[in-house]
Every structure is written in structure tokens, then in C-alpha cells.
């Protein structure tokens, strides 16, 4: 018997008798002998709970988390302070353990939370329709591409180089399967420069702020897309939308993005959630679950999964997406976080980020050997160029317990010693000063090495 099963010998005897077979073996009679595994699985025997815990803790200790170093890593996932109430609510069995709400009468908690989440995302993005979550940011961009392909049927996507590299790649993976081309729009001075668009484009995809941290002027981008008859898709970082003009207001048809920054842990990249919002006209094309308001037979207000005929369990091969399990618990964390921040709080938080990020950029620009990669407005993240090999600079910083940011060279070869620096509210002025000093010292040391005679 395992820790989680309850069949005693006595139980087994009674059960086999009721079934009418003599052994558990008999229940597997349908499996041809040839296919029966003739040996136990080559896995270790089971361990006690304390042994498993010890092993998982030992593994954890060999990871350098944001608790163990001063981290300025961002690039899509951010080290925010997550309030204690999120965990206490998420750990409630009633939210943690039920399935997708297929029986709405006993799932009003989940369904209403979805409705509230959808409302919050709609407010952030400025678009009227939001679904109840998709997996995460980059695959949400691919899902938006799928919608555009079904809707427009044209052969190309035009995607800004400022869109997160993972999102561009995820879209490209599917575009290949659809025999569609992806054309890249370059970044000039840190901002998207769209090419002339012909009528062969299904969608234009941009990111706000873009991957190098720059705030784009969204309205002309959406306008250009529409003039060519294509859809306008904006991959956006949800927190900056507290201050920035939201994509819906700027004319975009679809807004998607990565939700981790809203109340979810880093967790080495997942699970988090993706959000997907769209115009009213596209409501029947949106993928994933959607909660809708209605009444019960006694007139009580209630919520149900609605527009299910879009989805795989009904429309099957004609579905708007194949998505089934999404990220309900993580989206719940998102709406709790947004409620915790509140209308005023989110403005306070993002304003704080703007000021601290400006300060960080200023301090770094003042360091010899460090320059900003562009001069565009930024919100919580910016790209800098180092006048020294970035890998060696990073190694030196690590020795000081500082992780200054994400090296850009692999994704942006035109910025071989580029560094993406993210600032959250957990990075104080002292931390930023320490970054500037540490990074400055590391750059200086590396430059000296280069200049020193062989």
C-alpha cells in the first residue's frame, strides 16, 4: 500500500470477489503478454515524506534564487514582491483542487473569479473581451497568430524585432506548419519601423514596451495594420499598462501577454499565465475558456462557461484552439494581485518603477564604458551597451553577489555586449547604487585587461 492508496488485503479480497476474478492480474487480461513489462520500472523504490523533502531541499539549495543574489534579471519575468494573502487564498483546497468548472452549480467560486479576472484584464488592455487565461506569453502570441490566420487567411505575419525572442520563435514554429512567412520589422533607435504593408499580411505583431524596454507609439502601428486590412496584435507587459495608453485604446484588435508579473512566482519560468483580450467583433474567435454572467432558475446571479462552441470539446477540428487545461490558479493569483494593488496602488507602483528605472539608467549611463542602447522612454526595464565582454563582466559581478541583467548578444547580435536591466519595487535605491558601482568596477576591470599589454 502506498501513502495515497487505501486498499487493504481484506478490501482487495472483497473487491475481487465482487468483480468475479481471482486476482488483480486477471484485470489486465486484455493486455497481450508480449506487451507486459517483464520487470519492474527502473526507478528507485519509494521514499518517506521526510526523505523526499530532504532531496527536494538539497536540489533547491543548488539554485541561486533572487533571495540569494541581487538580481536585475527581467526579460519577460520579474521579481516582484508577492503579498502574503495570495498564497493563503491560493492554498485553499476549494481553489487548488477542483477541476475545470463543468458543473457550474458547484463551481461558482472558480467561475466568478474568472469573470473578475476577465474584467481586470479588459480594464488593463482597453479591450472589451478577455478569456480566462492561456498558458503564458509567447504561446499567447502564437495563439493570436492562429486567430489571424483563420480570420484573414493571408500568407504573412509582420512581426517587430522588439517582440520577445521567445514569442517570435513560438509564432514562427506554428507559422511554418501553416506555410506562412514571418517578416521582421526592424527596430530603429529602439522603436519599431514597420515596412510598407501589402494585402498579403494576416497580422502585424508588436510589443509594448518592447523587449529593449522602449515605449512604442502604438496608434500609428495599429493604423498601418488596418490600412492594409490586417489584424493588429499587441503583445504587452500588463503592469506598465497602468500608465501607458492601452492597446485597445490605440486601435489594436488583440492584446496578449505574459501575466507572471501579476502576483505569480518566478518558478524558473512557469507555471504562470498568458492573457488574451480582443475586440467585441472577435468574441467568437477567441481561444480558451470564457466565463459569462447569467441567472439560475430562481433568478440568482451566477456564472457559467460560455461560448463553449468555440472550444475543442464541442467544435473539435473546427475549434478556435486546441486548448483545454489553461492556467486558472495562476490567473486567480493575477486577479487577487490586481485587487490588492487597486486602482490607485497600481499607479503608485508603476510610477515608482518609472522613477527607479530612470534613476538606474541615469546612474549606469554615467559609468564609463556603459551607455544606453537607446534613448526612448522606458517603464521598468532598459537595454544598455557595455564597452567590455559582457560574459566576463557578468562573472565579475556574480562574485560580488550581483546579477546585473540579461545579456542580449545571443538574441540581438547587433548588441553583442548588450545588457537588459530590470527594476522592480524590490530593488531599492541602495541596490541600484550597488549595481552601478559593481557593474562599473567590473567593466573598468575588463577594459583594463583589454588595454593591458599582452
Amino acid at each position, binding site marked *: 500500500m502506498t501513502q495515497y492508496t487505501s486498499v487493504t488485503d481484506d478490501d482487495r479480497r472483497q473487491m475481487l470477489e465482487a468483480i468475479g476474478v481471482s486476482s488483480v492480474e486477471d484485470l489486465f487480461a486484455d493486455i497481450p503478454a508480449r506487451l507486459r513489462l517483464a520487470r519492474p520500472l527502473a526507478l528507485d523504490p519509494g521514499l518517506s515524506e521526510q526523505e523526499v523533502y530532504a532531496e527536494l531541499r538539497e536540489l533547491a539549495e543548488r539554485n541561486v534564487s533572487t533571495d540569494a543574489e541581487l538580481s536585475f534579471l527581467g526579460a519577460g519575468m520579474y521579481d516582484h514582491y508577492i503579498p502574503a494573502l495570495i498564497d493563503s487564498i491560493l492554498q485553499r483546497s476549494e481553489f487548488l483542487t477542483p477541476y475545470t468548472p463543468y458543473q457550474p452549480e458547484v463551481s461558482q467560486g472558480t467561475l466568478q473569479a474568472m469573470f473578475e479576472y476577465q474584467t481586470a484584464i479588459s480594464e488593463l488592455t482597453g479591450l472589451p473581451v478577455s478569456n480566462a487565461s492561456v498558458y503564458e506569453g509567447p504561446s499567447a502570441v502564437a495563439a493570436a497568430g492562429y486567430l489571424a490566420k483563420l480570420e484573414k487567411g493571408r500568407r504573412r505575419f509582420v512581426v517587430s524585432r522588439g517582440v520577445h525572442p521567445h514569442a517570435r520563435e513560438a509564432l514562427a514554429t506554428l507559422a511554418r506548419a501553416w506555410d506562412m512567412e514571418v517578416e521582421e520589422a526592424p527596430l530603429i533607435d529602439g522603436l519599431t519601423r514597420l515596412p510598407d504593408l501589402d494585402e498579403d499580411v494576416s497580422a502585424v505583431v508588436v510589443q509594448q514596451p518592447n523587449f529593449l524596454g522602449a515605449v512604442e507609439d502604438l496608434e500609428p502601428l495599429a493604423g498601418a495594420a488596418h490600412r492594409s486590412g490586417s489584424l493588429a496584435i499587441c503583445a504587452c507587459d500588463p503592469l506598465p499598462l497602468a500608465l501607458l495608453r492601452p492597446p485597445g485604446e490605440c486601435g489594436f484588435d488583440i492584446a496578449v501577454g505574459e501575466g507572471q508579473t501579476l502576483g505569480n512566482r518566478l518558478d524558473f519560468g512557469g507555471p504562470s499565465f498568458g492573457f488574451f483580450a480582443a475586440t467585441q467583433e472577435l468574441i*467568437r474567435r477567441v481561444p480558451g475558456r470564457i466565463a459569462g454572467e447569467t441567472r439560475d432558475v430562481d433568478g440568482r446571479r451566477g456564472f457559467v462557461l460560455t461560448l*463553449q*462552441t468555440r472550444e475543442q470539446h*464541442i*467544435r473539435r477540428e*473546427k475549434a478556435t484552439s486546441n486548448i483545454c487545461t489553461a492556467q486558472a490558479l495562476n490567473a486567480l493569483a493575477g486577479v487577487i494581485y490586481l485587487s490588492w494593488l487597486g486602482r490607485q496602488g497600481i499607479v503608485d507602483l508603476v510610477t515608482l518603477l518609472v522613477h527607479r528605472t530612470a534613476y538606474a539608467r541615469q546612474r549606469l549611463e554615467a559609468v564609463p564604458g556603459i551607455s544606453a542602447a537607446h534613448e526612448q522612454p522606458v517603464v521598468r526595464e532598459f537595454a544598455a551597451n557595455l564597452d567590455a565582454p559582457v560574459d566576463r563582466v557578468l562573472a565579475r559581478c556574480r562574485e560580488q553577489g550581483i546579477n546585473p541583467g540579461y545579456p542580449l548578444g545571443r538574441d540581438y547580435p547587433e548588441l553583442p555586449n548588450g545588457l537588459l536591466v530590470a527594476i522592480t519595487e524590490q530593488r531599492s535605491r541602495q541596490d541600484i547604487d550597488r549595481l552601478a558601482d559593481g557593474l562599473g568596477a567590473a567593466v573598468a576591470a575588463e577594459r583594463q585587461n583589454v588595454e593591458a599589454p599582452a
Partner: protein
Amino acid sequence: MADASYPDDLLYHPEHDWARVDDGTATFGITWYAQDALGEVVFFEVPEVGKTVAKDESYTEIESVKAVSDVIAPLSGEIVEVNQAISEKPETLNEDPYGEGWLVKVRLSDPSETQSLMDAGAYEATLQ
């Protein structure tokens, strides 16, 4: 919801669609059986006027809460009129499938196709 009925003045297609023929034009709709099987209709994809429809082929979709159904054209022709009111009030299809619940009016391209359709009695027999 009305009781099962299959008016005598209509012609029936085995995929549960009816046609009311008037000179060279026919009105199409779905039968009582079809709306009953679908359940409460929630959405009707209004086809465009001018679209060509072909006998035995789907020309639009109807959605209920839990199902999507192709609607099959009993006869071939060109759509000359569509019932916009249904898209605003899809429940009409359940309440009055033969009257207010008509879907499209079609100018027939081959009126002789009516010979392959069934009368009410023959159609009802297929439902047993």
C-alpha cells in the same frame, strides 16, 4: 416549445431541413426534430445574400449551448433573402421553426431537384 409537427405543405430533406417552394423561389429552414436535437439555439451564422448554395451541402451553421450543427441545403440556388431577425433572437428557431424561424430564401437553379425530397409522412417515418 411546440410539440412535434411536420406541416404537410413542406418538402423535407433527410438531414432535417425543410423547403417551402413558391414558383422558382424556396424558403429553407430546419425541422422540429433538428431544433429539438440541438437544444436551445444561441447563435445563427447569417449567410450572405448572393451566396450560392448547393443541394446536400452545408451553407451555414447553427449553434446551441452544447453543439454546432451544419445546416444542409435541400435544394440548389442563390440566396436572395436572409432572416436577420434570427441572429438577434435565435430562440425563434426553437419556438417557430416553420414560420418566424425561416432561415433563407433561395432562387432555385434546378427546380426539378424537388423530386428527390420527401413529403411530411415520409420524413416522419425516417424519424422512428
